[in-house]
């Protein structure tokens, strides 16, 4: 009998009460307060901050309050930047990214030390197809300002993924560099399962899992998983995505016990990326996830 897991919760706002509180405040009458709080979240790290920005930018209910706020306060830098990210997320196409770009040029010109502005530019570089070296330029600028930006590391990895048949050297170098000095519990260890999931996805269009089951891949996944779980994750927000990647990659690699460990840490939470990528193996994954969560309840 297969155990079904709990209904997945993908929305970071539902997973983290502080993010839900921020979203409610922004969309229900106190956008200035939410913007103030948004900046404060950033004190915990630029990478965590963008998770909060993304929660707001994904919300359709933000449009009205944000438009009204900008009409009254056209110079509010945080609101202008949020409007750029909102435009990208609402449109989710090249045209939307292009429209945001022009405002971003100005925002970065006004303050080139604003890590979040560079992060949004990194997002638009990919969405608008601005070219690999421009994407890297933005990434490097961001890394100068926020060396621990794990979300940027993941974005850059995705940008480096070659077309089918292409070389993976750059991606491997990127992951090696990012994990070389990463401490235990660092979200940067999540780049390892992400790399192998991306490579599996590109090189195994039929969905067969042979690639992930190779001994050297399993060994890399195991080592990275050990390092990631050896200490509490330095970013609770980032942990959801990293645990999901590990859970999915190790399950597909046949490392069921390790996968359960990560699903257990997630509880009902999941990040959509890897979960969607492995949609063809959903039933197997649900089984592992269900068993993990059930075991977690028993403990």
């Amino acid at each position, binding site marked *: 009998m297969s155990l079904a897991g709990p209904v997945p919760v993908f929305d970071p706002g539902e997973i983290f009460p502080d993010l839900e509180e921020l979203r409610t405040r922004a969309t229900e009458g106190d956008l200035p307060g939410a913007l103030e709080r948004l900046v404060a979240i950033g004190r915990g790290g630029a990478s965590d901050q963008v998770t909060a920005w993304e929660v707001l930018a994904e919300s359709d209910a933000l449009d009205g309050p944000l438009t009204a706020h900008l009409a009254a306060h056209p110079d509010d830098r945080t609101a202008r930047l949020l409007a750029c990210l909102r435009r990208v997320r609402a449109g989710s196409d090249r045209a939307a*990214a*292009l429209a945001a*770009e*022009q405002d971003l*040029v*100005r925002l*970065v*010109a*006004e*303050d*080139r030390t604003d890590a979040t502005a560079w992060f949004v530019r990194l997002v*638009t570089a990919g969405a*608008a197809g*601005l*070219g*690999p*070296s*421009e*994407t*890297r*330029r*933005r990434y*490097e*600028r961001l890394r100068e300002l926020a060396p621990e930006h794990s979300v940027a590391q993941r974005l850059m990895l995705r940008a480096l993924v070659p077309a089918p048949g292409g070389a993976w050297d750059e991606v491997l170098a990127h992951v090696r560099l990012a994990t070389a000095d990463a401490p235990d519990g660092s979200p940067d260890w999540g780049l390892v399962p992400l790399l192998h999931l991306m490579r599996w996805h590109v090189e195994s269009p039929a969905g067969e899992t042979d690639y992930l089951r190779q001994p050297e891949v399993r060994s890399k996944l195991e080592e990275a998983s050990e390092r990631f779980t050896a200490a509490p994750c330095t970013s609770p927000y980032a942990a959801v995505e990293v645990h999901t990647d590990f859970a999915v990659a190790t399950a597909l690699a046949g490392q069921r016990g390790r996968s359960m460990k990560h699903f257990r840490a997630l509880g009902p939470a999941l990040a959509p990326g890897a979960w969607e990528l492995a949609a063809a193996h959903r039933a197997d994954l649900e089984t592992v996830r269900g068993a993990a969560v059930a075991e977690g309840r028993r403990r």
Partner: protein
Amino acid sequence: MSVTETTVDGIPVFLADRDDGLCSGGLIFRVGWADETLAVRGLTHLVSHLALHQVVVGDPHQNVEIHDRYTHVYAQGSAQQVLNVLNGVCANLQQLPTHRIALESDALRAEEARRTEERRASPLLRYGAQGYGLASFPELGLPGIDADLVQLWADAAFTRENTVAWLAGEVAPGSLKMPLPEGERSTLPVVTSALGRPPMWFRDSTTDTLVVSGVVTPGPAAVVYTMLLGRALDRDLLDGDRISLSASATLEVRDAEAAVVTITADCLLQRRGGALAGAVVDAMARLRWGPLGAAEVTYAARAAAETHRAADATPDAARRRALDRVLGLAPEQPAWGPDDFVGLTPEHVRAVAEELHATALAQLPDLGLDWAGWNQIPMHSPRTVTGTEYPGRGYSDAVLVLGEDGVMVRTPRSRSTVAFDQVAIMQAYEDGGRWLVSTDGFQVQVEPTMYEVDDAAIAAIDAAVDLARVVRLSARRPEDLPRPRDTTPEQDAAASPEQRRAARDRRSWLRRVTGR
């Protein structure tokens, strides 16, 4: 060191000291290639070479330079050597050795072939195939220039009213002999515009160099802006992201109302793919909107004023004063001096940054700038022609259309039109080939080997084009005639994207600019 002014033979002469025992001097004529039409492109250069005949022989210190608005004959050496050159040129201009036209034309064509610097499409796209836009073209008019035209041009342009001289060192101005004819003072070339909605960009993937140019108001603010922009490029492109090996911003005063800022930056091989354009856009944006303190501007202004003062203290100051005078930039005094840099504010500098952005034209080695809100240069003629259609030969999908008011080549992807009343040049080969360039820069090649055209069609084109725009050329060798496309559309489709893009860019720009 001060510059003084005197007059010899009715011509102003600016004088400066020189303390190294050498002498130098020059004649600056208010005529340059921007005064020509494309059909006589090279005429000023040819006249200058004829004027130098038996005056200067292979000495790098004595030569002639043809610029857009002026021609500069200069010499350095002993007082006698300098006088020999300047007086000799003036004497030759009275009776040019026109029997040497063919020889000198060949020499100029060889000079063109040896050019190492590429001709760029930017001037053509900004100004069209006329005036300042002729910088994009080689000297296409040379084969059609005859003795009458040469002397006519010399008499009209190389006159007393259009000439200013300068001398530096121990050379007596009274020894100059400049019996130039009287004439009308020439106005500066008309500034034409072919640029639609700047800021604009175009791609030339045959080069790794990015070039951005724009027109600003000349003056100390433009000088300081260019200096700050150069520093920003240094910081971002060379030191910071290490995108380029060289990056610079220059300022050239065009006339009393306009100066051209030009950004030039190359791209390291491993940085291809958009970063160069991104970094330049950011550097430009920072001077429009970024933090710019009064102290930073004041410091740069002081440095610029010092540079200005230092330049004023060199023998070259006489040449610069002469140039200002001949261009009408400063009838009595220098256009601006070191003291004018005092009191510049960030707002002055930002105003220049806005001007540059509003008039900018970028040549990019790859990708585009639509993301930054810049518009792509149109690749199709705005005009169409209706009339008789002549299909392309071979696998070509192009159609030549000949109407009463113009000629057009149309493919499923493009359209290039030349209206007969807008012809900048028509090269007419004895073998029947015709190459027409419109003043807006679009071109049409009418080739019997490429299209199913007959003699009557060629005759109709000849009858419709102004003779003053026609350059007649001898028949080409059969192996040099253009051939119909010998690849099928399927083979074209199989080419890599890079091959296709390179081929497209080459067709669009190089052939458009050079005719090759």
